[in-house]
């Protein structure tokens, strides 16, 4: 097969469209320290809302993004309310909302459907507006125009998130995730901060879902199935690339991680890897990355045990312990 750069540019555009998912997962998983499965539902519902507004109501693609944002934020808020006010375990609360969202996604997708319920939606029959049409005046390929548009939107979203997370509110949300006791003792309403963070996180993911649907000219109700693992893979790849926990760098890392992941998948597919195999490979990659600190620690301890073998017994244990 001949090398076609546009294939990889298209993969890059997909990665950029998915960057909001990675950043949303970074917010819940790394900032709030809470595995939030709502994002799977938010991604799908974001795509469905945007798709139906474009196809059934003739909206401009860009104009559907704030609606997707709002719907995603409501989903995150629902999980937050279940968790903080009704004291339901966070993971379970997110599963409940995710499950409920599946029905909502199907209902939204089926608006105006001739044959009742449908679980997939084509965003393209030749007449609908496309995001990349905004750049129709540029002498570029379709893939290149998509990539530029997706990059522009991803950068704007990243800057907005950076602003939010660096603000007084952002600091309060981060403190809630790091040390809830301390957060309350400096007067932070930690319940509200959790709800706000989950809302922002899922809002980002729903916008990402809308962008993915527009980028593919297609969406279906099950796009969220692999969302968490793919998003986590992007977050972890990003952490390897930027190696900084500072908010700005972490957000850029998640964005880059998403692009790298999707280009890597494209490369794998070009090497005759089956599409159906990518999920297992991704899952193994994430397991490996999450386990790395543990595995590394074991090796370190092993090495230290050896190097302290000649010390008096009472000193051996202490050298192996971390300072913090």
């Amino acid at each position: 097969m001949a090398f076609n750069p546009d294939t990889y540019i298209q993969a890059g555009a997909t990665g950029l469209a998915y960057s909001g998912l990675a950043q949303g997962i970074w917010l819940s998983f790394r900032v709030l320290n809470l595995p939030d499965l709502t994002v799977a539902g938010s991604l799908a519902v974001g795509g469905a809302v945007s798709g139906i507004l474009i196809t059934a109501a003739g909206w401009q693609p860009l104009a559907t993004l704030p609606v997707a944002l709002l719907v995603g934020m409501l989903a995150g808020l629902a999980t937050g309310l279940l968790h903080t006010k009704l004291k339901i375990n966070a993971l379970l609360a997110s599963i409940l909302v995710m499950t409920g969202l599946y029905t909502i996604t199907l209902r939204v997708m089926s608006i105006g459907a001739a044959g009742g319920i449908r679980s997939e939606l084509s965003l393209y029959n030749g007449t609908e507006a496309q995001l990349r049409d905004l750049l129709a005046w540029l002498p570029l390929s379709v893939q290149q125009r998509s990539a530029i548009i997706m990059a522009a939107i991803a950068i704007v979203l990243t800057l907005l998130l950076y602003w939010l997370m660096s603000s007084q509110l952002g600091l309060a949300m981060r403190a809630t995730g790091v040390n809830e006791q301390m957060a309350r003792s400096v007067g932070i309403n930690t319940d509200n901060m959790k709800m706000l963070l989950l809302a922002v996180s899922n809002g980002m993911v729903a916008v990402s879902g809308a962008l993915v649907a527009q980028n593919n000219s297609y969406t279906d109700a099950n796009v969220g199935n692999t969302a968490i693992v793919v998003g986590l893979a992007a977050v972890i790849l990003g952490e390897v690339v930027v190696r900084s926990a500072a908010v700005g760098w972490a957000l850029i890392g998640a964005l880059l991680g998403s692009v790298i992941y999707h280009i890597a998948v494209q490369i794998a597919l070009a090497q005759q890897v089956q599409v159906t195999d990518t999920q297992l490979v991704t899952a193994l990659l994430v397991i490996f990355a999450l386990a790395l600190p543990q595995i590394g620690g074991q090796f370190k301890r092993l090495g230290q045990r050896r190097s302290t073998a000649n010390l008096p017994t009472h000193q051996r244990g202490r050298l192996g312990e971390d300072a913090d």
Partner: protein
Amino acid sequence: MLEISNLRKTFNAGTAHQVKAISGLNLSMAAGEFATIIGSNGAGKSTLLNLIAGAYQPDGGRINIAERDVTYTPEYIRATQVGRVFQDPLLGTAGAMTVEQNLALALQRGKRRGLGWGVDRQMRSQFRERLNSLGMGLEQRLGTRVNLLSGGQRQALTMLMATLARPNLLLLDEHTAALDPLAAPRITALTEQIVVQQGLTTLMVTHNMAMALAMGNRTLMMHQGEIILDLSGAERAHTSASELVARFTSRNQELLSDRMLFG
């Protein structure tokens, strides 16, 4: 400044593990008073501070801070009036955040948190000045993550954070107990400096009898959820640490035997 009347708190009420932590406690503190609290383990010292801070809800009684009834006010709202330093240096700061971010969080105590920058230039110069007064070189490390600091530095930072936005009440829960022998006296000196400078109404729990008498202007002894000794003025000045220890043990035994006889 602080008025507590008939405060009660029982843990695991109605079960076999029922513990009466605070039983009908009364305490009144004037503005600017600095009281130390001593008592054996399980006397209810930490529970009392947690009730005042709002981390626990009482079963009954009343807590007023600065003439306001805060008995059932949520902890995060009460935090606008109460500064706290915990025994564990890790508890009072957000380890994954930088020194200046932690201070900014404390500076915003009691204010609305909005979309303005969390840390700005004006705050930074203020923080640098305040950190400089600690004499620990922290003014050079505004951008350092707090979990890279030593326990003593973290506790000094927590002291500063608890008092940055002047609280009506400062609660110190054995805040030097987990520090090494070099850091503990520095935090003690810093405590006196800050409390005296700002004239803060302060409650300090300690296990060190000498410190309980040397610091502040009032000493309270707690036993089984009640204040059984309240020393101040000349009486306190003429009490030595060994006398206090003697009263501590005799009082404990006396109460113990009373309970055995009549309880």
